[in-house]
């Protein structure tokens, strides 16, 4: 019983950590976007306002995949263990 609960908790934590590998993608993408925006502002300083607004929009959209991973990780950390342990306890007591 304790071993099973330990395996559930450990695997949930491992899964959350693996899910957050997805943070790499948005990081690279947003870095590229900001670099290009810096270049654009350096070339045409008068277009700073519209470039900044567009860059923030693009960053927000590029961030979405990372946030999906974050939601999965948070579910795995704080929601899934309780549900899974409940299921385990129920099945063991019904045996």
């Amino acid at each position, binding site marked *: 019983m304790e071993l099973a609960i330990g395996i559930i908790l450990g695997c949930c934590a491992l899964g959350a950590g693996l899910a957050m590998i997805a943070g790499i993608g948005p990081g690279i993408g947003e870095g590229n976007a900001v670099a290009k925006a810096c270049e654009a502002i350096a070339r045409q300083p008068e277009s700073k306002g519209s470039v900044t607004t567009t860059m*923030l929009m693009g960053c*927000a959209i590029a*961030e979405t995949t990372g946030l999906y991973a*974050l939601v999965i990780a948070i579910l795995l950390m704080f929601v899934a263990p309780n549900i899974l342990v409940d299921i385990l306890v129920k099945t063991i007591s019904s045996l």
Partner: protein
Amino acid sequence: MKEKDLRFKIVDILLVLMMTVPIILGIVLQVMTEPPASGVQITGARIFFTIPMPLQDFPVTESQVNSLIVMIVLLGFCLYITHGLSEKADLKRQHLAEFIVEKVDSLVKENMGDFFASFTPFIISILALSALSSLLSLFGLYPPTSDINIVGGWAVLVFVLITYYKLKAGPLAYMKSFTQPVALLTPINIISEVATPVSMAFRHYGNVLSGAVISVLLGTALGGLSSMILGKLPGFLADIPLFQVGIPAVLSIYFDVFSGCLQAFIFAMLTMMYVAGGFPEEEYKKKKSQKASKIKKIN
């Protein structure tokens, strides 16, 4: 004239109370009902009580109460800055109200075109509601935007609006828009249509929630660090939270103030883009002109 002035002042004071009292009541409620904290605590919204319902019990959570607080405060603010409007504009608050309305008006016209000029009240209320909900964490209250149910409701509202404006050119044109580049892509188009509100809700909620989680983790880590360094000292010196003073506030500026306002702006911006982008303007105009010519023929 003097009597009117007195009345004006009394109404002013009442409106200011309307803006401040709900927040104070919320803090009092939070202090009274909060369970004693121990270690790292990251929980969802607490449930105050549940109302029994035939199909499913209806829980009244912290996020619902806090979003009601936000609505009352915003209503008070709007009544306050529009109280005593005049053509001479002799009150400072009128300039603020005009500034806000003009800014959002120009933003809506720039992004959505003239057809959607009447969208300003909706966009302004989404902006204000979302920004103030996220900023509520500055008072130590639970920000309603870090609950998926609240933000999901807004996203569903936006989805209904998008579909309504897509249907303006007739249901046939709406069906046809799913098979747009090739008929083979229809399932993918349907998935992307459904993914719009999901991604909007997750984006806003994930950003606010991740800020809250990082703040809690950092606060706990700094507490551990200061007790590790000062823990060996005798007496009350061991309890001094050396690193917990000031450092979390710097991060709070980014995660609470900047990120909250940015997410509100992005949510409003995406609403405008999706609604204006999904609207088939040419087909709508064609349909309208056809209708007009039909009416002319009958006449």
